[in-house]
């Protein structure tokens, strides 16, 4: 041992000598950060640890004017509510088009937007919305800013029902929209549907003028027109999107004259832009940029409505055995794993396949997750017939956080004799490998982050219903008749308490079935310049500039 240690030091000294002065700088700067990162790594991230930007006290009254510059990591491709797929696109649509209802500031409840009020029939099949009578569309090529009426609601919702590739309107239950008069509509459902109202908050259900949609045809995705506080002025692919203030906006006049959304694929460029005063808001920060934004006093975080997890193949391979799944969970120090992946405090530890921001979250189920105990894991493996372990695969889409997770997972499982082969690929390849992978034992486990809302439906229904085993959200192939029954009952139920009860039953069952490791809720991480006031970072990470509850202004 002593000889080896001496050899090591001699070798290291020689290698260090060869590294010349290049390492000198690292030697000086690293220790400063080390305290932070090590400390962050030694304890699991919690919601409380998330950074809330201390907004500078404004020097005076609200100031109007200025162009708000926002930087995002990827360019929007189309802003047609029907075709959009990414958050970057939804952020633009949200400024231009508006829904009947929307979420409140805290993302806990639904508030009116283009509707003034609504009521639900006793059988839960009919939703009656009364509309605002002071809403006008932004002027466009095919209409000159006419009033929004009930026909537009009917046209827009039925368009999403008929033409949208993604189900954004509870398609299974949606029937039709009836126009009562110019300012009242009734949405008829085939049966009562618990998550329907939340579904209407999806930006895909924004109300659009038929003339513009049909006039532009396929090009509507670059010429969006709606009722929102900002009008789409120009959209240059991979460069920037320019929005200008809507002079006929029905709500409070936006404080800023316009918005420019720029693209910078490198996170450090986003922080550089904020620090050098070239941008006001930098969205979707990751990794080291979070630390840099934090050091510069620009970081604003919010826990996200998302679940990051490892799922097991439930039907084939070694993980089809419940004892093996329990052993795997017991073998992983999940707290250690979370702190190892998220070294800048950019996530919170979770225990269940449900965001803790959901109204259906019940912390009594947290304790159902098997505790970290490698010895017990080994014993379980021996009981399951794998005393010498086995080899399994872990499929991940190539990203820093996912790669870290896979390597830590591999390490912990290696300690109990399970060899994990990491298969890292592009998201598209990952998606094609994982979808339907329950059918054989090629994919034994996979890592995924799933974004939802505050309705448990957005998680439990997607993850565990047997209807979904051929989609990526339940690619592990979890199928249980009882769970299907509870999920269907919860879907049809409109009473929140009853729905919570159903979802609780599902939660208890799937936790006991050890279907996966649900380990993190990745936070929304933004950098916001000090002179930006009245900004809100919400759990869904929507860019909120001029809403019923905030109106950003820039101190000149």
């Amino acid at each position, binding site marked *: 041992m002593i000889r080896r240690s001496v050899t090591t*030091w001699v*070798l290291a000294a020689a*290698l260090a000598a*060869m590294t*010349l002065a*290049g390492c000198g700088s690292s030697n000086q700067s*690293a220790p400063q950060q080390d305290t932070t990162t090590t400390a962050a790594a030694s304890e699991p991230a919690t919601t409380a640890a998330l950074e809330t930007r201390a907004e500078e006290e404004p020097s005076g009254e609200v100031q109007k004017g200025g162009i708000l510059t926002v930087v995002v990591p990827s360019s929007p491709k189309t802003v047609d509510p029907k075709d959009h797929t990414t958050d970057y696109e939804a952020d633009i649509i949200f400024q231009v088009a508006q829904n009947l209802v929307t979420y409140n500031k805290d993302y806990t409840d639904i508030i009116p937007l283009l509707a003034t009020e609504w009521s639900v029939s006793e059988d839960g099949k009919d939703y009656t919305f009364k509309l605002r009578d002071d809403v006008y569309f932004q002027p466009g090529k095919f209409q000159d800013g006419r009033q929004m009426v009930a026909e537009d609601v009917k046209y827009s919702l039925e368009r999403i029902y008929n033409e949208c590739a993604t189900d954004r309107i509870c398609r299974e239950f949606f029937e039709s929209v009836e126009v009562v008069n110019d300012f009242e509509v009734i949405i008829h459902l085939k049966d009562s549907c618990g998550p329907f109202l939340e579904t209407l908050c999806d930006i895909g259900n924004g109300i659009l003028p038929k003339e513009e949609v049909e006039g532009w045809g396929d090009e509507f995705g670059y010429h969006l027109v709606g009722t929102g506080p900002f009008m789409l002025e120009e959209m240059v692919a991979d460069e920037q999107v320019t929005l200008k203030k809507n002079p006929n906006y029905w709500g409070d006049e936006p404080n800023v004259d316009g918005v420019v959304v720029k693209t910078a694929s490198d996170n450090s460029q986003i922080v550089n832009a904020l620090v050098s005063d070239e941008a006001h808001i930098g969205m979707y920060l990751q990794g080291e940029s979070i630390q840099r934004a934090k050091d510069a006093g620009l970081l604003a975080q919010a826990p996200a409505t998302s679940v990051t997890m490892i799922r097991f193949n439930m039907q084939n391979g070694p993980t089809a055995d419940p004892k093996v799944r329990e052993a795997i969970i017991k073998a992983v120090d999940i707290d250690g794993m979370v702190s190892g992946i998220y070294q800048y405090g950019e996530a919170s530890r979770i225990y269940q396949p449900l965001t803790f921001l959901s109204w259906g979250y019940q912390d009594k189920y947290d304790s159902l997750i098997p505790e970290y105990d490698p010895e017990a894991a080994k014993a379980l493996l021996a009981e399951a017939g794998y005393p010498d372990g086995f080899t399994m695969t872990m499929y991940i889409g190539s990203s820093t956080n996912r790669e870290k997770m896979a390597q830590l997972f591999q390490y912990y499982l290696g300690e109990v004799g399970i060899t994990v082969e990491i298969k890292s690929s592009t998201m598209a390849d990952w998606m094609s490998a994982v979808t339907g992978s329950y059918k054989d034992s090629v994919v034994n486990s996979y890592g995924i982050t799933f974004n939802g809302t505050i309705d448990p439906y957005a998680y439990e229904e997607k993850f565990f219903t047997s209807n979904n085993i051929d989609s990526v959200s339940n690619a592990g192939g979890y199928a249980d008749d009882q769970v299907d029954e509870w999920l269907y009952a919860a879907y049809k139920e409109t009473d929140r308490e009853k729905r919570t009860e159903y979802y609780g039953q599902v939660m208890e069952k799937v936790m006991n079935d050890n279907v996966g490791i649900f380990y993190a809720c990745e936070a929304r991480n933004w950098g916001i310049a000090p002179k930006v006031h009245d900004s809100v970072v919400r759990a869904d990470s929507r860019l909120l500039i001029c809403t019923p509850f905030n109106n950003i202004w820039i101190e000149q």
Partner: protein
Amino acid sequence: MGDKKSRPSGDALGREANIEMLKRERRANNAWHKLKRNKIAMAGLFVIVFMVLVAIFAPLLAPYPPNKVNPGQAYLPFGSPGHIFGTDDLGRDLLSRIIYGGRISLIVAVGATFVGATLGILLGLTAGYFGGWLDSLIMRIMDGMFSFPFILMAMILITVIGNGVLNVTFAIGIANVPSFARVVRGQVHIVKREEYCNAGKVIGVSNTRQLFCHILPNTMSQIIVYATLRVADAIISEAFLSFLGLGIALPTASWGSILKTGRECLTTAPHVATIGGVFILVTVLGFNLLGDGIRDIMDPKMKQ
């Protein structure tokens, strides 16, 4: 008789002196002795030998297993107790990863150069020696491969065959083939016009014997110089592919993958990228210096 032995004649003295002079001249012209006189090339050789020894004895030298994670000790700085090169994002010992990473980087670089050289030599010899339509066919294919930038070619191959040590070696090797083929073909064109080759043809030496016993040995010096330089390029290619996440599979350490890890923390823990980068730099420099040195001693115009 005894007198003859103890008192050599003037002719004998002259012969011995001549032999001694010839020996000295041969020694002076000996490649190794020439190389030894080139201090810069020797420095390059020292670096290579050092890296190769470190790679060979990695299990004895590395203080920790290269993949042993310790999330609680992530990003320890250079010079930390127990981790003199510090640790990376997962708390793995950087010295151990550099040592094992050198193994992978060198294996891939040498292996890829070997693959590229072997195939390139065969194609270059065939094209250069036989000429005609065969030459045109082979070289047009090589030109086609040349039209892809080297690294793009390697990336395409990796995308098709997947990552991993063998696949990366193969991909970089294949991407190396056209350049070797072109160099060898050029040399063959010169060598095959030499008198001894013509003489061989006249006495009916078979094509195979002509190619492998007469032409190939006389192009070897150029090939060795070129191969030395290509090894350096292959190290960078492996690093580049690993940096893009297309190279060696996780969590195997290679200098490129260390560099990739370091990119994620350039401002908060710059030592990770610095250490990975410096080792790539020094080793590539070593191969380049040695290659330049060999070229100098092989080049008759450089004789002093």
